[in-house]
């Protein structure tokens, strides 16, 4: 709130105290943008777990009937075993990347389609805009999980991991379309777009060269958001029993936990691992989103 229009960062910035190359600038920024740092840290932790896990643990043990059932954690089975005879460490190591894969594929697809639609709708306006916006608005009123349930139930023989990704992606574009379109609408009115138009730049050129670069941080935040939502949707489907039944994905593990009343029966090791991992996934993605939001929306930087 500087009502005087006090000039801020319009001139050349004073030279950086020590030019050590881009690396240190990155670290310095991370110290300021703590959410981003925490998000990256959590997700890196997860990545390490997956990579090291897959290199050291025998993922065949994630199949049912591989080991003795219902063993509490021990040296042989650090995370214990479940009722179907799976080694839980192997299940986590094998299943987490599957869950993440569904999330990433669906998220990327969703934001990809959403971006294209949003730019077409927001830039060209007209009938296309009304149609796209109408579909997105109506689609968003409907609870996504339920539509996914209907789709999943209709597919014969249950879903595979890849099919789940496609199914989740089919709804994942709705929200990104709407939010990116709103941004495009705002950008469209900016002076430099008008100038580009007058200069004779074609629509696609303007979109790609003038608008996209300015929206990249926002797109990144939307992407992370979409991935998080997709993972949530896939876990939701799996908990309801609509996922790939033999797969050790995080959601399926939760399904079996529920099915076997693991909490009531006191088999605590069964549910601790997946819950902790899911917590890390969601918290990591959340902090990442907040951190990216801060880059995308500098006004938030000044607030406490």
């Amino acid at each position: 709130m500087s009502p005087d229009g006090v000039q801020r960062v319009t001139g050349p910035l004073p030279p950086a105290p020590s030019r050590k190359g881009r690396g240190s600038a990155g670290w310095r920024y991370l110290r300021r943008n703590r959410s981003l740092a925490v998000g990256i840290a959590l997700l890196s932790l997860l990545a390490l777990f997956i990579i090291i896990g897959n290199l050291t643990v025998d993922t065949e043990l994630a199949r049912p009937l591989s080991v003795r059932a219902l063993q509490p954690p021990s040296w042989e089975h650090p995370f214990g075993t479940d009722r179907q005879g799976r080694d839980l460490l192997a299940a986590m190591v094998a299943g987490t990347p599957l869950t993440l894969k569904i999330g990433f594929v669906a998220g990327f697809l969703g934001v990809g389609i959403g971006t294209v639609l949003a730019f077409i709708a927001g830039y060209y306006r007209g009938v296309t805009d009304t149609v796209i916006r109408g579909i997105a608005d109506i689609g968003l009123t409907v609870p996504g999980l339920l539509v996914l349930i209907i789709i999943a139930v209709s597919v014969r023989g249950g879903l595979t991991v890849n099919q789940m990704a496609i199914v989740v992606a089919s709804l994942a574009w709705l929200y990104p379309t709407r939010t990116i379109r709103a941004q495009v609408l705002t950008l469209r009115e900016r002076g430099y777009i008008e100038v580009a138009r007058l200069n004779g730049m074609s629509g696609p050129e303007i979109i790609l060269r003038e608008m996209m670069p300015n929206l990249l941080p926002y797109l990144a935040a939307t992407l992370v958001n979409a991935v998080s939502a997709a993972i949530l949707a896939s876990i939701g489907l799996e908990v309801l029993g609509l996922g790939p039944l033999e797969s050790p994905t995080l959601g399926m593990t939760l399904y079996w936990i529920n099915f076997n009343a693991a909490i009531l029966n006191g088999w605590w090791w069964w549910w601790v691992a997946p819950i902790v991992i899911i917590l890390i996934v969601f918290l990591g993605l959340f902090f990442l989103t907040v951190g990216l939001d801060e880059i995308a929306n500098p006004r938030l930087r000044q607030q406490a």
Partner: protein
Amino acid sequence: MNASVLRVERLRVSYDHPQGAVRAVDDVSFSLRPHERFGLAGESGSGKSTMALAILRLIRPPGRIDGGEVWLDETRLSSLSDDAMRKLRLAGIALVPQGSMNALNPVVRIRSQIADALADHDSALPPRQLEARVHDLLDDVGLPPAVADMYPHELSGGMKQRACIAIAICLRPKVIIADEPTSALDVVVQRQVMATLGRVQQELGAAVILVGHDMGLMAQFVDRLGVMYAGRLVEIAPIADIITAPKHPYTRMLIASLPSLERKGLMQGIPGLAPLLRDLPPGCAFHPRCPMAADRCRVERPLLRDLDGCHVACHFA
């Protein structure tokens, strides 16, 4: 005789910025006589709006008042408690903001925006009296009574501005600070608004500080003018003197740049750009753009000196 109603003494306001504090108002002093119309002119970024807020003690972080005093009659504003200062606002010193922008609460009717001011100053009125009072105020500013029921978005720019004036006068303040009340309005409406302002000021017997950058407007409205540059007051003089015989080089170039109906010729601007407040040159802030700049100007900052009723901050005036 010269008892001033408002006195500003060596006011300093700065804003904190990651790259260093920015001094928006730098050691500014002036006084306002009762019933006087005082203009505060300067380009964007010169510190004039900050000054208006500072007088009302409305500077919020990252801004802060670094020093100086403001006196309303005999009351030193910095010594007042928060609540006492709050009561003084509107009742003692009233602000007329740029109403055509966003100064009115968009979801509340005009009547209520006057009523809540009255209520919070212990002047709440029962409904029928409130209605009469609101109609009177609207009448004073030339607005029809129907406006009381309307929402801000239903009013034109000029009407919104006049509604703001109505709010500003509802407690009969001694000083009215009008902060760029006519920017974003077209000339015809500008004239209406300024006429309204002038009229209510006279009826109230209040003093007015008109903050703005439109020299033409200043010439028609104010008695005395203060010119600000880079957060500093560089000249204060009666308006006629400033227009006909400006003493500070900046003021001179300002006046010279005004288009005239009589003269024809090339428009004269002021070369260079207004300085970044956080990057001010040493000495006189204007010296990089001043045609008369000498070595002394680059080192020593000129202070306001009295020259028969005019005050100038220049080594060569």
